[in-house]
């Protein structure tokens, strides 16, 4: 039915037209891929398992970068108060931060797209309930909603994912609905309706593939937003647990030592966090610019 080879070919052509001639966006994409690879392979490439309390030696605590540890290895980026190697902690922290953001973004998008399509197809009270809920959500800043959620359910990796999902879904539902509604004006949907094809089939077979493009453009933005939000919440002490530090929590841990001149504990996780978000954002900006027909026509003038 669907020619996947052809789809793939158009996709790679699209990617080319998005990125060619935009070195900053290409750099961002490469940077992002590197971060993802580090996160995926952290258990194999990190010098130490920072979650394993057995390998941590308190005697190695608070060593500056490039010092020798008790077991003879070199700690390239120094250690924190409990003797955790910062390089390893950053790799694992990156892993956790990216995991949380990926899950939250994916689930948030699935929920948002589904509700958006449902609202468009069903109309009536289903649509008003969904759209009122969207209004409710988008009228509050995400960080406050997340704080509210975490105050209600307590903290933990799963809780923070729920809190982030709450932040993601609404704007996607709104966009999917408006995109699907304009698609529904077209004749082939009328034809499908007359042929008595059930609503769910129209939703999945016709509306979904044809109205998803503008929503997908928001994925990178959402991802970087989730990473930043998780880091902020963890920094505030209402995010991930202390035993499995994400980048935000690593920065919070080091924050207590900054004033006594031990800069490396916070600095490296912070630099990684900022570079990661920056990489995603330059890609996101480029994709958005590419998909904005207005800006495109302008550049041609």
């Amino acid at each position, binding site marked *: 039915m669907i020619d996947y080879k052809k789809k793939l070919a158009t996709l790679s052509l699209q990617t080319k037209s998005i990125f060619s001639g935009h070195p900053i966006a290409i750099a961002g994409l490469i940077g992002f891929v590197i971060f993802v690879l580090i996160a995926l392979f952290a258990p194999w490439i990190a010098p130490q398992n920072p979650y394993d309390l057995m390998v941590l030696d308190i005697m190695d605590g608070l060593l500056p970068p490039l010092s020798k540890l008790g077991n003879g290895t070199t700690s390239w980026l120094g250690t924190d108060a409990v003797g955790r190697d910062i390089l390893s902690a950053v790799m694992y922290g990156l892993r956790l931060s990216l995991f949380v953001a990926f899950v939250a973004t994916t689930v948030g998008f699935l929920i948002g797209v589904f509700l958006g399509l449902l609202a468009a197809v069903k109309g009536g009270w289903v649509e008003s309930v969904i759209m009122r809920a969207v209004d*409710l959500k988008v009228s*509050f800043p995400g*960080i406050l909603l997340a*704080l509210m959620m975490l*105050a209600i359910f307590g903290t933990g990796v799963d809780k923070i994912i729920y809190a982030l999902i709450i932040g993601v879904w609404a704007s996607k539902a709104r966009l999917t609905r408006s995109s699907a509604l304009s698609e529904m004006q077209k004749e082939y949907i009328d034809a499908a309706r007359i042929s008595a094809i059930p609503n769910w089939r129209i939703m999945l077979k016709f509306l979904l593939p044809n109205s998803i493009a503008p929503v997908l453009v928001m994925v990178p933005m959402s991802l970087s937003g989730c990473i930043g939000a998780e880091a*902020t919440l963890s920094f505030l002490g*209402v995010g991930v647990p202390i035993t499995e530090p994400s980048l935000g929590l690593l*920065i919070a841990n080091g*924050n207590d030592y900054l004033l006594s001149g031990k800069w490396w504990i916070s600095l490296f996780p912070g630099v990684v966090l900022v570079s990661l978000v920056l990489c995603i954002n330059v890609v996101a900006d480029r994709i958005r610019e590419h998909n904005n027909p207005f800006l495109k026509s302008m550049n041609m003038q």
Partner: protein
Amino acid sequence: MIRYILKRLWHSGILAIVMSLIVFFGLYVVGDPVEMLSDDEFTEQDKIDLAIELGLDKPLFEQYFTYAGGMLQGDFGTSFVHNRPVLELILERLPATIEISLLAMIIGLSIGIPLGIFSGIKNNSRASKIISFFTTVGYSTPNFWQAIILIMVFAVFLQWLPASGRGLTNSMFGIEWAWLSLNGLQHMALPAINLAIYKICMQQRLAKSGTQEILYQEYMTFARAKGISRNRIIRRHLLRNILIPIVTITGLEVGGLIAFSTVTETIFSWPGIGKLLLDSIHMIDRPVVVAYLILITMMFVFINFVVDVMYAFLDPRIRHQK
């Protein structure tokens, strides 16, 4: 117009009630205040007495109506930790949050919009690219990380500005303000800049994309063809038209600023309501958390209402919509 306002008012009322229900029942499942307040010497009977005194023995809905009734009379309950009326605690700290948010807003608008218009008009110039690069870095950097950098550079390394507290406050209209003294202003500087950086970046991006969209409209070409001076085109034709999205976002961002002030206030130990919220979450001080969230929610409902009305005022197409 009046009809539009009434409709929005009706929506806002429903929104306020739904949100207060969510907050109240959501927070109800957190912690057990009796356990919090009692110590080892409490007997079972003491605990039951305490629960009755706090009204926790009544059905949930009755508790909500008691709470909502008290709220309408300005009674938000008593803080478990501070043992003082919650409203008093919040009102006492509100000026600190307001002054810091307003200062950040003023800095953000007065720098962000001109930068945005400039980089919109001179889209391909080097200066515009540099500005856009910095604002991308700025909004990619989490608020708390900016705060840490600011503290490291200006408080620890250069030792120009204080990193925590509110400094001296002076009284005006019976309220204590920090901005009335030099010492207070110095204490305000870092937290305000911290909040403002994000605002500057957002405003720059908004104003830039707004400018670019309008720059190539036919009426702009026509205005140029008529020989109207550049400054006049910018003031009369450009600024007015990019104002609509800016007004909306700025309105919504007032709330965003107050939300983000939780982060900034916590890092700079700025004694505002944001720090109060976070401290209360950590200490499970339920009355404060519930009251803060409900008040903030009401504020948001109100802001959204005002933004909607202003939007309709600026753009006639909206108020004539069915």
